[in-house]
């Protein structure tokens, strides 16, 4: 059984300079209360691995605005002009990764694979500096695994074992990132008694979750 923590307690677990895998797609399915608490504790030098940096004032965009981020690994930053400005000024280093490659690199990191072979990115700037491998006459890029010090996961519902259930397009990167964080902090909208979530509905087994955020008030 897990004792639910407050957002401030969760943010205090995360040191400056940590690598964070953060769920969400344009701030949908992002761990908003943990993000707010990281901004409140004035976190610094974070590396954020996420699909995108949302937009100013929303989700991960709040961490960008607060100057909490030194590096971003994402597939898209186009809707956050602040990320682009900080990239151009050199304040933030940005590594752009195709979306399908990003999620598979994180999955590889989480499930003990040494990398991913994909045709995505061949013949484009994504290929630069990477090994290519021939399999059955087809060429693939070798993409390396990604792991995080922490995975910050947003879920619709949890139980006190830490089992997680997700909602609609708020799944996105969350179930994958829950595999790849050294420490996994889940932010459910609600927490229900153990047994309420059907085993078939569990997308992230509670054994992966280290800390559970208290339910939203």
């Amino acid at each position, binding site marked *: 059984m897990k004792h639910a923590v407050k957002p401030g307690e969760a943010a205090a677990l995360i040191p400056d300079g940590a690598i964070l895998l953060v769920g969400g*797609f*344009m*701030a*949908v*399915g992002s761990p908003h209360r943990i993000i707010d608490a990281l901004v409140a504790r004035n976190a610094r030098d974070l590396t954020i691995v996420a*699909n*995108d940096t949302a937009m100013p004032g929303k989700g991960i965009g709040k961490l960008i605005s607060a100057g909490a981020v030194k590096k971003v690994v*994402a*597939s*898209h*930053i*186009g*809707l956050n002009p602040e990320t*682009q400005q900080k*990239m151009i000024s050199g304040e933030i280093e940005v590594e*752009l990764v*195709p*979306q*399908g*490659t990003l*999620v*598979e690199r994180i*999955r590889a990191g989480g499930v003990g694979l040494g990398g991913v072979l*994909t*045709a*995505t*990115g*061949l*013949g*484009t*700037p*994504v290929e630069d500096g990477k090994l290519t491998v021939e399999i059955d006459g087809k060429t693939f890029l070798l993409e390396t695994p990604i792991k995080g010090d922490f995975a910050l996961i947003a879920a*619709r519902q949890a139980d006190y074992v830490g089992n997680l259930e*997700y*909602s*609609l*397009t*708020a*799944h*996105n*990167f*969350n*179930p*994958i990132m829950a595999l790849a964080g050294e420490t996994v902090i889940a932010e459910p909208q609600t927490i229900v008694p153990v047994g309420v979530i059907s085993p078939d509905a569990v*997308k992230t087994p509670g054994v992966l979750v280290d800390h559970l955020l208290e339910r939203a008030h």
Partner: protein
Amino acid sequence: MDAKEIIARRVAQEIEPEMLVNLGIGLPSMVANYLPKDVHVFFQAENGVIGLGARPPEGMEDPDLTDAGGGFVTAVPGAASIDSAMSFGLIRGGHLDMTVLGGLQVDARGYLANWMIPGKMVPGMGGAMDLVAGAKQVIVAMVHTAKGNHKILPECTLPLTAARRVSLIVTDMAVIEPTEAGLVLKERGPDCSVDDVIAATGANLIVHGDVPQMQIA
């Protein structure tokens, strides 16, 4: 009829019943408006839904149900919500029948550039590289020229999205099929002569006999 409507109506004719189709944001998303009522397809939004529906009435939005542009959507009966690994597995794995994307440039090889303008616009590729590398059919939907400048060129000057020959280019002036031999002019746009199309195209066009005019309602 404006240029975008011509393009969207013509692309809609390429969609066959029971396809799984991914429409990019902007112009490509307009294609859904012109699908015949009796043609049932599933639209995928790569952020995690198969069976994307129309925008919900005001006040009935679900914050956990958006499209890949972050706009509120609905899900049709029979829809499935999926995580990003499943979503891009479908895309790369040959399960997506068609993707329709916008384009900055397409060249005589049929290669597409649509994700960055060095020094000007670096939004990130998002899912575009996976979509172009993986979908069974790739349709580029774009206006034929940009402020008088050619967008269909001998060779793309912008970084490629993928080194893969796209299936079809649909513009307000032409339908063009990239082939091993080069770009074949299949149809000309409303009120366009073959000479008009050739003048507006930076790459050589292969013209076989009489080129029919697009038939759009």
